[in-house]
C-alpha cells in the first residue's frame, strides 16, 4: 500500500454513482479504480489487491454479498465498506455477515465515507492487538475461551467461526470483561472511528456475535446496558 495515496476499489453498477464516487474519492486523496459488476471487482482485486473496497450491494448478477463472500474466501482481509440503496435492515445484515466491515445507506455524506475509510485503513495498517500475542495466550470469561495466537474462539468447547470484525469486537469486549463500553468507545477500539459518527454498526455486529455464541443455547454473556453500551459478563 502506498503511504500517501491508498488504493481504493469502487464497485457500483450505476455509471453516475461510479463517476461521482471516483472523482470525490480521488479528490479526497485516494487512488481510485472502479468496477461495474462482481466479476469485474474480483478481476480488479486479482490484478492488484486494493487497500479498501467500497462495494454496492445491489449489483446485477453476482451481488455485493457474493463479492464479499468470495473476497473473504480468498483470504483477502481488505476492509470492505458496503453501500446499500435499500433502507431495510436485511440487506446490510447479509452484507456484514458475509464479512464486510461497515455499511452506509445511500445517499450518504462523502466526508463520512472518507473518514470511515481512513479509519479502517489505519486500523488495517497496524495490528488490532497491541502486541503480537504469545503462543497459548488466551482470554477466558465464563464459557468463553479466546486463543489470541491462533485467533480461535470456543464456547464450552464448541468452536465458533467469527469474521475478522466480529472477532475483534469480541476480543475487545473480553479484554474489558465486566467493564461497560459505550458504542463510541467500541467504534474507536474496534473500527478506529475516533470521530463522531451516526451508525448502528456496533449493534449490528453485537447481534451477530451473540447469535453465533448463543447458537447452542449458551446463556448470554454479551449484555446490553441500555442507554450506555455493551458489557461482557462471565456469568449472569
Amino acid at each position, binding site marked *: 500500500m502506498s503511504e500517501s495515496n491508498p488504493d481504493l476499489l469502487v464497485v457500483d453498477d450505476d*455509471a*453516475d454513482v461510479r463517476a*461521482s464516487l471516483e472523482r470525490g474519492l480521488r479528490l479526497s486523496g485516494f487512488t481510485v479504480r472502479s468496477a461495474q459488476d462482481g466479476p469485474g471487482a474480483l478481476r480488479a482485486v486479482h490484478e492488484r489487491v486494493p487497500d479498501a473496497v467500497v462495494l454496492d450491494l445491489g449489483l446485477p448478477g453476482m451481488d455485493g454479498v457474493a463479492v464479499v463472500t468470495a473476497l473473504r474466501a480468498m483470504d483477502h482481509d481488505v476492509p470492505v465498506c458496503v453501500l446499500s440503496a435499500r433502507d431495510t435492515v436485511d440487506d446490510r445484515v447479509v452484507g456484514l455477515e458475509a464479512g464486510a466491515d461497515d455499511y452506509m445507506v445511500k445517499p450518504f455524506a462523502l466526508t463520512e465515507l472518507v473518514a470511515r475509510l481512513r479509519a479502517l485503513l489505519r486500523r488495517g495498517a497496524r495490528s488490532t492487538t497491541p502486541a503480537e500475542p504469545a503462543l497459548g495466550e488466551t482470554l477466558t470469561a465464563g464459557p468463553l475461551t479466546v486463543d489470541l495466537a491462533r485467533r480461535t474462539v470456543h464456547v464450552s468447547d464448541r468452536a465458533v467461526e467469527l469474521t475478522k470484525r466480529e472477532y475483534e469486537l469480541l476480543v475487545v469486549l473480553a479484554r474489558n470483561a465486566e467493564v461497560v463500553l459505550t458504542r463510541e468507545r467500541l467504534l474507536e477500539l474496534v473500527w478506529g472511528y475516533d470521530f463522531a459518527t451516526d451508525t448502528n454498526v456496533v449493534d449490528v455486529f453485537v447481534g451477530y456475535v451473540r447469535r453465533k455464541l448463543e447458537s447452542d443455547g449458551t446463556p448470554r454473556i454479551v449484555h446490553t446496558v441500555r442507554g450506555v453500551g455493551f458489557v461482557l459478563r462471565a456469568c449472569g
Partner: protein
Amino acid sequence: MRRSLSLRARVALAAALAATVVVVLVGVLASVLLAREQTERLDRSLVPGSPAVLGSFASTRADLAVTLRNPAGEARRVSGPELPLSPIGIPTSVTVAGVGYRIRTAPGPAPGSLVTVGATEDDTRARVAERQRLVAGLGVAAVALAAGLGWVFAGRAVRPMRRLTAQAATLDRAATDPAAAPPTVRADGSRESEELADALSDMLARLHAEQERSTASLHAARDFAAAARHELRTPLTSMRTDLEVLAAHPDLPERDEVLADVLRAQARVEATLTALGQLAAGDLPDAAGGEAIGVADVLRLAAEDARRAHSRLEVVVDEPDPATPESVRASPEGLRMALANAVVNAVRHGRAGTVRLGAHAGTDGGVVLTVDDDGSGLPADEREAVLGRFVRGSTAGAPGSGLGLALVAQQAARHGGRVALGDAPTGGLRVSLALGPDRAG
C-alpha cells in the same frame, strides 16, 4: 348482551303449548260427556215398580227415596225424605233438605196415584269429579311429556347449529393465514343448517378472495415503494457526492463537468418521479372505456411529440396498413404516453437515429401500433423482463428510471391489450402495442 330464549327451549315451549291446547279441548269434551253419561245412567235406575217392590228395593239402597201420592195428592212416604212432584216421565234435579236428588215421577200402582223415585246425586257427582281429576292429571302429564320430548328432540335438531357455531368461533384463527385454502364450515343434519353452512362458506370464500387480493396488492405496493425509494437513492447519491466535491473544492478545474453531472442526476430524479406519477395514474381503471380516435391521428400526434422531445431524431410515420381498422376506442393520453415512452426507450437505450411509427391489422381483427428503431436492439431473452418495473436491459445506453417500457405495458394492460418486443425491419427494436378487436372501430 341480553340473549333471546334458546331455540331448543322455544321448541319445548311450543310443544308444551300445543299439548296444552289439545289436552284442554279433549279434557273439557271428556268431562262433559262423562257427566252426561253418568246422569243418564242414574236416570235409567229411576224405574218405578210396585210400591212393595219399591219399598224393598229402597230399603236395600240408602241413596234411594220413594214417595207415593194417592189421587187426592196426599203423599205417603215409602222411604227417604218426601220428594216433590215433578212432571211425569221427565227426570229432574231437585234439592231436598240440602241434598241434591235426581227424581222421576210415574203413574203409581193404584189408578190416579203417582210414585216419585229419587236418587241422591252425590255419588254420581263424586264419580264424575274423580274422573275429571283423572283426566286433568293425565292432561298435565301429557303437557309435561310434550315439553320434555320437545326439549329432547329440539336438542337433536339444533345440534348442527351448535356445531356451526363452534366452527364459526374458531374460524378467525384459521382465516388469518391468507396462504391457506379458504375456510369452509359444514353442518350436516338439517336442510336449514346445511343451507346456512353453505351460505357461510360462500361468504367466507368471497372474503378470503378479497383478503388475498388486498394482501397481494399491499405486498405489490410495498415492493413498489421500496423499489421506487431505491431508484431515487441512486441519483441522489451521486448528486450529494458531486455537491460535496463542489463545496470542498471551490476552484476545481472540472467544475463544469461536475455541475453537468449534478444536473443529469437531478433530471434522473425528476424523470423517475414523473414516471412514478404516470404509473400511479395509469393504475386507475379506464373508467370511460375510452373514446374513438383515428389510428392515423394517434400516429401523427405521437410523431409530433417525438419530434418535439428529441430534436435530433428522425421520425417517420407510415400509412396504416389498408386492413387496419380506422379508429380505436382508447384513452388518447394513455396511447400517447405509451408511444412516447417507446420512443424515449429507442432514443435513450437503443441510441436510435430514426424511429418509424406504424399501424397494422392484428391477427384477431384488432389494431397493432408499432414503434421501430434502428438502434442497438435488445437480446431476445431480456424482452419479457424489461417490461417489468425498474428493470433495465443489459444494453441500456444511459441510466434510466427502468420504468419506460413498464409504462407502455401498463397502458397496454389498461386497454386490455399487450406489448411485445421484437426485431424491427429497420434493424433495431420493435415495440408492438396490440389492442384487441373489442377496441377497434
